[in-house]
């Protein structure tokens, strides 16, 4: 036995282990569902085979006080085991796990962990919580599904899953009963599949069985052998998106591509390449996957605390003189980080302001309603200007001009970020006070308040290719470098070094370093990755950056034009040489030529512009009409407009321009340029700022605007213009057409001035008139602008109202649905009541009929003894009418009632029954019963009087009594000695004759046993009459009359009489013998001697 045992144990252990191994699920599928999710879940499991090898965890928003039936319901649809999660349970394959109510679920090392709900703000997002932990724990083996539901729970969770390389599937909005959660999830742009629940199982099964997804990490080599194809994929990507992923970390890129291959079901990279060629939109998906960014407000709390307490004050300190703070958030993704920094800066400014003035900052003091916000928007820029000029007049804090440039390569992300709109979930990341101060609650979540949004400028930018921002106080570039190969990292660091001001800060991700540039950046804190610029030297900047062009988005090519893209970088150097060549050529050919935008903004100059263009002192203005003299200004302005309108060359000849000594006859040629028209029409404006490091960027013309700040303002309706000068450009926003203006002049002596007749003469008066007109137009324009702005404000208000109305409409709809269901319930209840009523009516009829048929008069009285109800039988005795209902009983007068009134009070007081016979009018008799009326709680609620007519019984009783009396009389006077006995033989009656015979009184005889010894009756032998021989016994057994029963009556032995008794039984109603009538006949006697002698002698 002992030998076998260990072996057994071992075997069982192995058994125990091996299923554990196979129990491990291939993937864990998290399913988030809320309102309307049950149907979708049932459908989903209907289509999911029981042996998929997956573990399913259902995160459902459960009511805390309602028992969920989910388990029972699902059990009908799937053969998999369904378990409610217990803390520490291991997720096994082919099992379904349900979240218990009032708990948050997370997963760690495949173990499901429960936590009680945090009561933070009352907002709980269990789907987000679980999905995030799922993403962390399972990484690319995480699958997240969002089903029907309201709100936005799960939205941030799927972003985490996607970032970890997992699969994200969302229910099609149309099929979802409630589209809040699916819509919110789809809007993130990270969703891999949007489909109906029926299709989900198939998608998942295909995905997990794909060779690159299903098997473990050995495919790394597989894909590297297909390297040429991989390069082609990257090339295709570059041609479509202008982003080159060649030097991104191969592992990351390969993993993302494999993932996409799994999703589109491509077995090899070659197949995927073919797929890409046929489905160009897949390139966008891949691109998005590669750029996936997940940020949160105050992600990494500790670091932001540090930023807030140490760095922000430092930045303000550094800029005491310049009063300009510039921050660049690189790779801002959906903008959380950029807004976080803007909030920190604003918060600090507010605190400065408070310190300075002792009052609360203006913006936070006034609740932001939209019209007010509109005012602020209009006032702010001016205020800023005013403050800059007159410090001290306004608050200290207002003197700083804060700009946060937020850039990302992903245009979609930028577009979304610029809206500043975030789901409800951010509430858990932000402290309450900041949330309230800097966000407005909207229906779908939170919107960043306008004054914060104004601080942040979003732009689409490729940090590796596009020119950087300059004179920056802070650059944050978190978790971007890790995606880049070391050589690219180096380039980026060089750019940052160039961009930052002396003493500027660089804020990197936790696992990132400054690399080779550790000499140029010193860490501010050892733990937190914030570095300070040392102002030492300049690391070499990659050549290509100097060639930076204003980024022109090429029209997206549908087919990869590989060669063209490949040569792009190589040819740029060649282009530069060419440009210089053409510049020289133009300089030789013309006196002066300039390129302007359609609105007259100067873009580029050739030749000798200084002869015609003069910059007035003060703020730099690039409007060419302001730069030329007044003589040319009008003609140029008109010419530009006409050239744009008519799309043809306009020429003005011989316009006199007066110099100090000379007069020049100037000709203008305004030519619309064809070649540059395809440029994307976006809101374009130019700040006209010139950086002091311009030379380093290699641009010669001081009037040339800094291209880097040519920013794409994404179309938000309330886009503000930071400074007044470029207001006009708003009119020409869509006019990105370029024009060339060619100046040509002939010098004349001043004295000859009058000899020459200008081709277009302008008299002083006309001139003045034109100027007046222009002013008027300008004035009108401004008016118009004000009106437009007012209309915009009104429109915004209307939109807001509309949104509110939509929201309340939705609420009403859901209320309506609720009411509908309540209504249905009421209908059901109503139907139940109807049937109850029918039943009761029937019962009532039965009762009525019963009461009528019994001829029992009944009166129901309430607690105050008012008549509630009565039956028709009562009316015979008491004259009750229908209108008497409700009257007190005491009001009525009738002999019957008078005799029971007292009793009624008694019943009410003592709650006990009273019964009595009463006589009504005539010879009518009633049995009156008075009972307490007991309600369902056995409480006395009144009195019930019932009157039973007993006249007949009463009469019968009387008749019977009379009959009895007669009979008694007859018996009494009968000569035969007769007695009546009861069933036991006791005498109940004895007539006179009997009394005489026995010489006893009726009093002595009554209730005596007639055959007992006391009455001296014996049998003939003088023995006691007992046992079976008793006459009464015989009568009772035979039930027949007995004749000639002989008894001896002997007072002494010498004095005896022998009687023969004839006995007749009497029967009761049950036909039992209850007694007998006995007639005694003397048949013999013995008299005492004396009397005998006397007799003889007589």
């Amino acid at each position, binding site marked *: 036995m002992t030998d076998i045992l260990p072996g057994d144990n071992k075997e069982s252990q192995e058994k125990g282990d091996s299923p554990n191994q196979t129990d491990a699920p291939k993937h864990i599928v998290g399913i988030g569902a809320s309102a309307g999710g049950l149907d979708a879940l049932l459908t989903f499991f209907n289509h999911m085979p029981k042996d998929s090898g997956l573990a399913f965890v259902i995160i459902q928003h459960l009511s805390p006080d309602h028992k969920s039936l989910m388990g029972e319901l699902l059990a009908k649809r799937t053969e998999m085991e369904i378990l409610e999660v217990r803390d520490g349970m291991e997720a096994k394959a082919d099992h379904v796990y349900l979240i218990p109510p009032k708990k948050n679920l997370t997963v760690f090392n495949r173990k499901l962990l429960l936590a009680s709900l945090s009561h933070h703000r009352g907002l709980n997002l269990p789907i987000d919580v679980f999905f995030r932990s799922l993403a962390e724990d399972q990484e690319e083996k995480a699958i997240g599904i969002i089903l029907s539901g309201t709100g936005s729970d799960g939205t941030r969770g799927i972003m985490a899953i996607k970032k970890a390389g997992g699969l994200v599937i969302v229910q099609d909005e149309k099929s979802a009963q409630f589209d809040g959660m699916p819509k919110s999830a789809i809007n993130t742009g990270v969703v891999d599949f949007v489909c109906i629940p029926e299709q989900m199982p198939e998608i998942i099964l295909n995905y997990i069985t794909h060779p690159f997804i299903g098997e473990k990490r050995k495919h790394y080599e597989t894909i590297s052998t297909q390297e040429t194809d991989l390069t082609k994929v990257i090339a295709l990507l570059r041609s479509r998106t202008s982003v080159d992923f060649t030097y991104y970390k191969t592992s990351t890129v390969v993993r993302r591509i494999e993932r996409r291959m799994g999703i589109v079901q491509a077995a090899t990279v070659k197949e995927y390449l073919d797929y890409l060629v046929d489905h160009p939109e897949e390139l966008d998906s891949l691109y998005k996957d590669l750029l996936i960014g997940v940020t949160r407000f105050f992600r990494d709390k500790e670091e932001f605390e540090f930023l807030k307490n140490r760095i922000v004050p430092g930045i303000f300190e550094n800029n005491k003189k310049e009063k300009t703070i510039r921050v660049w958030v690189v790779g801002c993704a959906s903008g959380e980080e950029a807004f976080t920094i803007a909030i920190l800066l604003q918060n600090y400014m507010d605190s400065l302001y408070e310190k300075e003035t002792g009052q609360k900052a203006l913006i936070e003091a006034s609740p932001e309603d939209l019209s007010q916000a509109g005012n602020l928007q209009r006032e702010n820029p001016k205020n800023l200007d005013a403050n800059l000029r007159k410090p001290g007049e306004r608050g200290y804090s207002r003197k700083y001009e804060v700009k946060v440039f937020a850039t990302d390569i992903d245009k979609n992300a930028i577009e979304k970020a610029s809206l500043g709109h975030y789901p409800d979930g951010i509430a858990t990341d932000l402290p309450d006070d900041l949330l309230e101060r800097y966000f407005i609650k909207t229906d779908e979540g939170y919107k960043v308040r306008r004054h914060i949004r104004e601080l942040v400028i979003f732009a689409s930018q490729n940090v590796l290719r596009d020119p950087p921002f300059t004179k920056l106080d802070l650059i944050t570039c978190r978790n971007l470098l890790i995606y880049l190969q070391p050589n690219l990292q180096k380039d980026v660091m060089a750019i940052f070094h160039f961009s930052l001001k002396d003493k500027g800060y660089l804020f990197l991700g936790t696992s990132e370093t400054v690399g080779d540039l550790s000499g140029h950046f010193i860490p501010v804190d050892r733990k937190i990755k914030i570095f300070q610029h040392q102002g030492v030297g300049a690391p070499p900047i990659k050549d290509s950056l100097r060639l930076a062009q204003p980024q022109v988005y090429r029209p997206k090519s549908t087919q990869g034009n590989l060669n063209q893209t490949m040569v792009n970088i190589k040819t740029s150097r060649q282009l530069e040489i060419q440009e210089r060549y053409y510049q020289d050529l133009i300089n030789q050919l013309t006196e002066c030529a300039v390129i302007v935008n359609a609105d007259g903004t100067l873009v580029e100059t050739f030749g000798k512009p200084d002869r015609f263009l003069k910059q007035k002192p003060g703020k730099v203005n690039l409007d060419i009409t302001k730069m030329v003299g007044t003589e040319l200004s009008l003609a140029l302005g008109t010419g530009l407009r006409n050239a744009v309108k008519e799309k043809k060359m306009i020429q003005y000849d011989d316009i006199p321009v007066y110099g100090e000594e000379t007069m020049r006859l100037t000709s203008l040629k305004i030519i619309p340029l064809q070649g540059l028209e395809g440029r994307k029409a976006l809101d374009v404006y130019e700040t006209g700022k010139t950086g002091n490091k311009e030379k380093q960027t290699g641009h010669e013309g001081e009037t040339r605007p800094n291209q880097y700040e040519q920013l794409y303002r994404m179309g938000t309706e309330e886009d503000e213009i930071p400074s007044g000068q470029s207001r006009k450009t708003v009119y020409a926003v869509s006019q990105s057409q370029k024009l060339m203006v060619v100046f040509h002049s002939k010098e004349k002596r001043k004295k000859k001035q009058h000899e020459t007749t200008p081709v277009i003469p302008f008299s002083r008066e006309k001139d003045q008139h034109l100027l007046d007109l222009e002013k008027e137009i300008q004035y009108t324009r401004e008016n118009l602008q004000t009106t437009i702005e007012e209309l915009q404000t009104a429109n915004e208000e209307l939109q807001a109202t509309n949104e509110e109305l939509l929201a309340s409409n939705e609420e009403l709809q859901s209320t309506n649905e609720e009411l509908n269901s309540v209504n249905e319930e009421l209908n059901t209840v109503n139907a139940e009541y109807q049937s109850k009523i029918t039943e009761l009516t029937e019962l009532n009829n039965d009762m009525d009929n019963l009461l009528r048929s019994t001829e029992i008069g009944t009166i129901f009285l309430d607690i105050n003894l008012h008549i509630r109800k009565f039956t028709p039988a009562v009316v015979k005795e008491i004259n009750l009418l229908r209108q008497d209902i409700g009257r007190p009983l005491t009001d009525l007068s009738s002999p019957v009632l008078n005799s029971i009134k007292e009793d009624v009070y008694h019943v009410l007081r003592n709650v006990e029954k009273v019964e009595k016979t009463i006589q009504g009018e005539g010879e009518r008799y009633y049995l009156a019963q008075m009972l307490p009326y007991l309600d369902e709680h056995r409480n006395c609620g009144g009195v019930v009087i019932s009157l039973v007519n007993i006249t007949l019984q009463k009469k019968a009783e009387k008749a019977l009594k009379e009959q009895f009396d007669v009979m008694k009389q007859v018996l009494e006077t009968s000569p035969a000695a007769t007695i009546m006995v009861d069933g036991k033989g006791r005498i109940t009656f004895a007539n006179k004759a009997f009394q005489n015979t026995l010489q006893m009184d009726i009093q002595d005889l009554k209730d005596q046993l007639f055959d007992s010894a006391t009455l001296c009756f014996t049998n003939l032998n003088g023995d006691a009459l007992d046992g079976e021989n008793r006459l009464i016994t015989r009568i009772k057994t035979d039930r027949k009359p007995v004749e*000639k029963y002989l008894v001896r009556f002997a007072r002494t032995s010498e004095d005896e009489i022998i009687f023969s008794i004839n006995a007749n039984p009497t029967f009761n109603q049950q036909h039992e013998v209850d007694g007998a009538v006995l007639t005694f006949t003397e048949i013999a006697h013995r008299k005492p001697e004396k009397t005998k002698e006397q007799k003889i002698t007589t």
Partner: protein
Amino acid sequence: MTQKPRVLIIDDDAANRELIDVLFCRENIIPLFAEDGTTGLKKAAEEIPDLILLDIFMPKEDGFDVLFRLKQNQNLRRIPIVIFTILEQEESRKKAMEMGAADYVTKPFDIKKTLDIVKKYLP
């Protein structure tokens, strides 16, 4: 006395027969019973009793008829006959005595007196 005296009682009233049975047995007299006249004549002829107690008022033949026929029979004419009746009238008493009855007892009878009469006629 080796031989107990035997008395034939001809009476239709069972109560009387029962009572007499008890009384006679106490007195060592053997009672013989007949419920009617015909049976009485037949029994008298068979048993030849020492005395006959004869009821007058009986259904079918009344006591006078039986008395007449007993007196007509040679074998029975010497047996003494005591009339036993409720009739108290002098005529019936006279008639019975004339017809040869030995004595006369009226009902309800006095027990002692009756026994004395019976004993008087027994041997």
